[in-house]
């Protein structure tokens, strides 16, 4: 069976690399941001918990960008992806 999901390059922030066995980026096949995070969670147990809250939304102070465009105002299910897109997961500038 041919996997038709687009190939996506995901960049992780330094704070999350300990949950990704030290990786700073991962390539996955996914049609939405929700699928991207689902793949990350399946490959790296605990990583999904760090990104999504109990309701499957991006945590309050976690931002996501697709090709440098912010998408955090959308639900991960709403963020559609295309072949070759780059996803960046970043902590928001918050706290003290």
């Amino acid at each position: 069976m041919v996997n038709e999901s687009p190939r996506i390059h995901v960049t992780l922030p330094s704070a999350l690399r300990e949950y990704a066995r030290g990786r700073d980026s991962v390539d996955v096949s996914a049609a939405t941001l929700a699928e991207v995070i689902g793949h990350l969670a399946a490959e790296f147990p605990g990583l999904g918990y760090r990104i999504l809250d109990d309701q499957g939304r991006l945590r309050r102070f976690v931002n996501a960008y697709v090709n440098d465009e912010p998408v955090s105002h959308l639900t991960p299910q709403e963020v559609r992806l295309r072949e070759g897109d780059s996803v960046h997961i970043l902590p928001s500038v918050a706290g003290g």
Partner: protein
Amino acid sequence: MARPRKGDTVVIAGTRKGLFVLTSKDRRTWQSRGPFFAGDTVRHAILDPQDGKTIYAAVTSEHWGAVVARSTDFGATWKHGDEGPRFSKESGLSVTRIWQMQAGVEGDLYVGTEPAGLFRSTDQGETWSSVDALNYFPGRDKWPAGGGGLCLHTIVPYPREPKRMLIGISSAGIFGTSDAGASWRNMDAGIRDFTPGGTCKETSTTCVHKMARDPKNPAIVYQQNHIGVYRRARGEDAWTRIEKGLPMNPAYDAPFGFPMIAHPHDGGTAYVAPLAGDGNRVMPGGKMAIYRTTNGGKSWAKLTKGLPQRDAWFTVLRDAMRADTNDPAGIYTGTTTGQIYASRDDGNSWKLLADHLPQVQCVETGVVGGA
């Protein structure tokens, strides 16, 4: 650094920026380890009272969520589950912080969260199950949040009776179970409300701050509330004021403060750390004082020897005072300006144990190898 040995005293300080572990053979000289989890808030951490070896830390990252980490080598290494406690999808709720952690009486572990929730683990915090009868208690949508958010911050198990437990939520009030969490009932009668001369009903919402059981008779519970200090014994139908000798918050003519601890051995002995008031959460007059009752709350005596009597413009938060299990007992008090004051004589005199820490969120104590 020498590894702690059986019988050593352990003081654990969770702070706004990491966790510190102090150990001592004689409670005179101390070794400090940490900070662990640098940058993250540790609102609560405990030394497992049964093995006297496992430290559990409630680590909240404002970015990446909250987990319970554990160490069996006093912080040298840590482990945690892949996930922290979580609400169900149907609830619409999401855990943002862990406020409280307590060992149950059956080797289990409980945490209290924000938004208010109670969760139980039977595998040292690897996985969690929701205590649904409380977390989805009828009317929770009307629970008012306290100044720190809608948080479950107090868990009070009942020694040798695992089916009984009290919990406190700011500011939904006090809830009790006698069937291992299958059902819960409100327990707020007798507490002042915010109207002049008003008193709460059993089902009122109140701003409980901390509760502690009497060490000799665990059926007696002492409470520091937003409005007053109280005690209630099992079978009684209301809380009773126990405030003689305590400084009063003039706004409500009631003592205001956060911690309430009991002495480890002496029945009727408890400690509070009153503040000027809810509108000015500092030591009254800038002079630090801890108050102790030795008669079950009939009266309170002021303890100041060795505590700063000027410029003490800080708060002692609800979990920032604890007693160890030694005899005489050690009492430890942490401040929001980063000091820990320690007493080796039941609170009669105090010395500075640590300074320049980040804001102290909690102080817990224990003995290596268990009490």
